[in-house]
């Protein structure tokens, strides 16, 4: 049961990669990459999930003492935060590139940008 999140995560990654590698249009590629990123983040979180445990928020109904026994592994969630932030950064950069390339080339087709080769 708990593997659904993991499976969907991987599925999303594959869809994202497939989209990025087949679409000619740059914007579609960026969208595909973001899907792949969300897939990765989902996997990250899913790995930390332990069946039958609660979210790692220490408050009154989850005292620090028996926190380690009743909560899921908090660390992947922390990692996910940075991963998301970094994913945002890179996507922003990609969009900036797409914008600049469009101004310059007038087209968003990745196969047009081939002057640097061999």
């Amino acid at each position, binding site marked *: 049961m708990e593997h659904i999140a993991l499976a969907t995560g991987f599925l999303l990654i594959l869809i994202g990669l497939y989209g*990025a590698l087949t679409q000619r249009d740059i914007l579609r590629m960026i969208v595909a990459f973001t899907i792949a*990123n969300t897939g990765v983040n989902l*996997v990250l979180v899913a*790995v930390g999930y332990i069946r039958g445990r609660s979210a790692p928020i220490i408050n009154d109904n989850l005292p620090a003492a028996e926190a380690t026994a009743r909560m899921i592994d908090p660390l992947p969630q922390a990692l996910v935060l940075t991963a998301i932030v*970094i994913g945002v950064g890179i996507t922003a950069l990609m969009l900036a590139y797409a914008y600049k390339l469009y101004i310059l080339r007038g087209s968003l087709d990745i196969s047009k940008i081939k002057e*640097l080769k061999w």
Partner: protein
Amino acid sequence: MVDALAIIYLTLGTAFLLGLLRDEWRILAYGITLLSLAMVSGIASTWVWHLADNPAESVEIMTAGASPPFAINLRMGLAEAAALMLATLTGLASTIFLKDTLLRLGRRAMAVLLVFIMAICGIILTRDIFNLFVFFELVVIATAGLVLLSHNERSLGAGFKYLMASQVVSILLLVGIIFNYHVSGSLNIDDMAGMSDMLIQTTPLAFFLLFIALIVELKPFPANGWALDIYESAHPAFSAILSAAAGTASLFAVDKVLAIGGDSWLPVATGIGVLSFIGANLFALAQTSDRRLLGYSSVAQIGLILAIIGQRDILGDSYWLIAGGVLLAHAVGKAGLFWLSGLIAERELTAWTALRDRPLLLFAFISFIALLIGLPPFPGFYAKWELIHLLAGADRIALIVLILFGALLETAYLFRWFGLILKHDEVAEKAPCPIQKVVVIYSAVVAAWSLAYLWGELSVFGNLMHAIPLLFALLFLPLEGLPARIKNVLAIGGLVTWFILQYPLYDPLQLIFGAIILPGGALILLASFHNQGRRIGFYPAALWMFAGLSMLIVAEDSFTFFAAWESLTIGSYFLILRGKHSQPHAQSYILFSLGGAFLMLLGFALASAGNPLFPLESLTTVAEDVAPWVFILLALGMMTKTAAIGVHIWLPGAHAEAETDVSPLLSGILLKAGLFGLFILLIYMGRQQLYGIDLTHVLLWVGAISALLGNLMAIYQEDAKRLLAYSSIAQMGYALFGLALMNHLGWLMALMFVVNHYIYKSMLFLSVGGVAKRTGTKEMYRMGGLITLMPLSFIAVLIGIIAVSGVPPLSGFGGRWIFYNAIMSAEYRLPMVIIFLAGPIAFLYLFRLIHTIFLGQLKDEHRKLKEAPFWIILPQMIYVACLMVFALAPGLALRHVDAYIDNFFPRNGLNWEGLTITSTYGYWSPVSIMIVVGVIFATLFAWLVFVNRRAQKVKQFNIVFAAERPYRPETTHFAWNFFAPYRKALGFMTQPLVTRFWATVAESLHTSAELFRRLYTGDGQTYAIQLLGFVVAVYLLSSGVFYGV
């Protein structure tokens, strides 16, 4: 000591501080950036200084007050400190280089640059894999940001491709990290390394993802299209940081992460490393754009270091010395070359001719190339030496061969590039030299040479920079400004004093070679007085060659021998390159010589069975099964220098196109280095058997065939210097034949040839050079009838050809006499047939040389020629005197050597008392021959003068021309295709088979490079697909490692 974290928060802090400044305060922002970078590199240097004294205590830096599993820890060891220092210093230098671009781009670019440097330092320091991921992503963002900001139209495409690739990498990395965490429970590398075998058993795929992501970060060969575009299009200073600093950091990361995977993953790393080293170098052969070539070269170098990391298990404690040496050499060399490319306007390799009349920048270029290839004084040399030896110790011969092949490819395209700069016909206009850029380049040069000194100190073989001859050669660099004549006096004085100092240490064999190299070299340098001007680059190169030669003959162990061998090769390469059309020949020379040197390196490695310190004497005690291979490798290496047939094609071009006083240096002295090597080899290893064939017999055949084909090819040459060059091949074939006879007189003959060949070949080259200088051409059929105008040159050539042909009164006959006595007692007689045929053939080209130049018809344009310049004639006359003395008293030089050879071959030596030299078979008394021939000649000459008193002196057309009047001097001078009938008879033997063979080898490399580089189609998506394909391929290939097969 300042806390290592200061490096990170200082750079990050200034980056944010810049945000606060007003946009127009750019100078202030730039100043702050520089200041922070300077402070950071200061911190790194103090750490290096501190840790260098006591390397044991590396510092663990805990963040957030908790121990690793719950916090990120950073480590600052000596290696990290050195890498940090490299990264920060490259960053600082590049920012200085980028002064005007940064001022144009504004403070945002400066901030991104600072973040970039911080991220690189972070990668080096951090011990936490997720933290590693964060810093890698920061590097990606900073790179893409800088490229985006640099308003360069072509780099936008490259930036986007880079981002796509890094997205795929980050996916792999994240998934790898999380699953590794999931199994090991900790993100810290050291904890994971603790349980690495458990990790590998349970989830090898997790580690694989982590590992392959970092490997792709290193831009390995098949999957690095995206990286090459960045290198090609980004600003060179920025590519310098990317290649030097970021490359170092990612290598460091791979090295750390490999600790988790354990030793079973090392072969995978080596495999990928070697593949990229050879693949990238091969592709670089076909590159015409300079920065793309540098991109390929940096990919190759990083691949090599990855391979070294992959060999960590067997390299033991010298691992850091080797990996560090190659890494630092790559970093400084590559950064320097990128900065240099910043000065050049066009992107074509030929545009670099702008450096031609900038001697200092040329010296910088050469230092960076030498650094990359690993030529003697530089750290790469020590590192490569130890690496090959340790690999040989672990019996990984295939790996050595691949690495050496890759290194040879690298020398090919780098030296071709240098040749283009010096010798390309149309010269680009002079390169502009803004101060801050030039300062950065010179600082890189200083760094390069200090690294050379440092690695010399660190290496156990004694620091090459302490060798006095090499230092003496380097002394001439600052003196380049002086006029050539003063430098010439200095050089001659240096050579002679060094010979006097070394004289007591020489044994007779070394004395003969030393006498030829040092005073002999000084004698030839006399001819250099005829040039005016400063002759930039001649004296350092010449003295570097002499340094190599003089160290070669006193080398005790294989390291100094090899170092001397490579330095004389480099020195002679620069000498050859000075000729007007000598670039292709210098290129083939350097490739053959370095190819031979690499063979010798492999030979020494096999012989020493793994321990880099290997005294030459213990060549005798090499293990039985490996000894013949060692013999073959060393002999092949040395024969490239004596231009034995098969590896001779570099010699004719190199000697013919060299300058007037360089050709004798090459032919008279340089070829003897190969002979000395063979002497040493045969002294220590003696006869070797391989599959039942006696290898000295093979040498006999090679010597005989070289003698025959050398002479035969010399006959058909139209160019005088080429004729002499082929004759040198033949004479060296003779000497090799004498050596391979393996008996007392054979060796004595070889030594006699060494002395004889030096004297008459230098004399002939000098006289032909003098004539060529006066007539302006080397083509023999264009000259003729110069005997009246250039009598002294004629006498020199006359005495020379009498000596070469072995006609009695002169010393050549001595060589032939000893040769005959030697073959009498030789037991293997078949090659004698070829040597006997080669003997008289020498007459043909000798007569052709003297006839077509001095006798026959005088051409109109040569009627007013003056004698060759005084300084070229003087050495010739000294040589004539030497030949006469050596003809009359051969005992002077050979008596001691004869005694010396006794302790190798006691039987049938010569006894020298009285005028006659007797051997067991015959006798020869040079003095009485000279007197008898002299008396007969004098009496008959007097008789002719008496009888023929009133001879009428006539001019050139008073000849019996079938009662007709000769038409013009050109049509009556018989010189073109002088031996046409002989070509019909034996011409088939001179088919250029060897040249064609080597041409096809080179051609196949170029076409394969040309063909396969189409792999990089330029389309970002194909790059991403290639990257994934690479990952899957490595996964499948390394599955053996997975399941512990």
